[in-house]
């Protein structure tokens, strides 16, 4: 069963809808007790970094999440800001992230990027898979995924990067370390590729 953390993030309904169609059971978790029972945890995210991380803290989720993910090694997938929360810090805010995958969340600076692309990075972009990973089984990297973000995750350890995307420069568009996964794009809004990725996560 997929335990989707419900902390007010908007993309929950679309994720829920896809799991319903796939006939994969899921639960929207609003309590610590629900997280304790989880065998797959999904961290959705649309919004600002500090706001998201402080909501997690206020609800008292961080401790139980640390235990589930770091000790019990339950598979976890962070989407968009949910992925950025896996990092140590973010330029978008002052609070610390969960620190499960080392790295920093940085702002796209159009003045530093060749070709001065428009910010935010918005639309469908392809991915270049840098490490084989079951999350990308049967995914078409050329078709890619839908992105909408102004900040990106820069992994400290290149070995944690599973795919990259070119937007001016190349940035890390998905990460994985052991049982921990994060994707910057929105699988719940990326048609077939997105559905397949959410199915792959359920099969982990």
């Amino acid at each position, binding site marked *: 069963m997929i335990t989707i953390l419900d902390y*007010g993030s908007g993309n929950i309904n679309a994720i829920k*809808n896809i799991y319903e169609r796939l006939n994969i059971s899921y639960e929207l978790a609003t309590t610590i007790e629900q997280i304790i029972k989880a065998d797959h945890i999904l961290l959705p995210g649309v919004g*600002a970094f500090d706001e998201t991380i402080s909501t997690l803290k206020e609800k008292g989720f961080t401790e139980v999440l640390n235990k589930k993910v770091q000790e019990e090694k339950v598979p976890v997938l962070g989407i968009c800001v949910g992925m950025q929360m896996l990092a140590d810090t973010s330029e978008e805010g002052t609070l610390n992230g969960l620190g499960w995958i080392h790295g920093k969340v940085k702002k796209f600076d*159009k003045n530093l990027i060749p070709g001065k*692309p428009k910010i935010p990075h918005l*639309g469908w972009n*392809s991915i270049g898979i840098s490490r084989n990973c079951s999350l990308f089984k049967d995914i078409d990297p050329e078709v890619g995924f839908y992105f909408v*973000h102004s900040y990106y995750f820069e992994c400290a350890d290149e070995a944690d990067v599973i795919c990259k995307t070119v937007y001016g420069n190349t940035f890390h568009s998905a990460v994985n370390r052991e049982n921990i996964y994060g994707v910057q794009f929105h699988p719940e809004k990326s048609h077939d590729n997105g559905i397949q990725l959410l199915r792959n996560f359920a099969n982990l």
Partner: protein
Amino acid sequence: MLRSRIIPCLLVHNKGLVKTLKFSVENGKYVGDPINAVKIFNEKQVDEIMVIDIDATVEGREPDYVMIKNVATECRMPLCYGGGVTSVEQVRKIIKLGAEKVAISAAALANPELLCQMSEAVGAQSVVLVLDIAKKKGLFGGSHYEIFTNNGKKKTGKKLYEFLEEIKDISYGELVINNIDLDGVMEGYDMEMCDKVRKLTDVPLTFLGGAGSYEDLKKLVSRFKVIGAAAGSIFVFKGVYKAVLIQYPSSEEKNNLINVI
């Protein structure tokens, strides 16, 4: 590589969908039910979709949150909702209902600073500024584009290019230019205006109004490489008699449209 976006724009009026002509509902046509249209667009793997409630601002009422939630839940592609949005709280609420982006027009024209506040609350990537424009003749010859609100009924007195200069330092995530004169006319985008606007803004840009064929979309994409090409009529009408039929380029057709470099 980042690709151009081909975006159907759906207009909600009296809970149904309409396709207007030069912003007139009376001269427009009923084209079906919003949820049903979204379901079809899902199957067609649409890049992104815009749903604009054209009654909300005119009636001075709140956005229809039930409709937004139903549409957002059904959408397997990104959704931009617009219509009647005037406050940061409303934007927050609509994002929580599952839309990726919220479009603001009249309220942002009255107070551009509002866009910054909205960007701070939900991230600039989710805040879209829509400008409805029409060409006006000057008293001493020449012409300019003026910005309108309330479905083209209310003049703002603001000129498009000047306003874009004015809001240079305002934070928002996308600009949509909607050309009233060309709405439903299906004779192609106004390329001259598009060129000028592209030079005046740094954010991702989408043009709406005028597309009459996939060829028109292609022209726009070739000109700007990465652009949002939005349209209404070509995605809901078929043939010269404008029979209602929801359609969208197949993946092969789309590749042909957007791989222009």
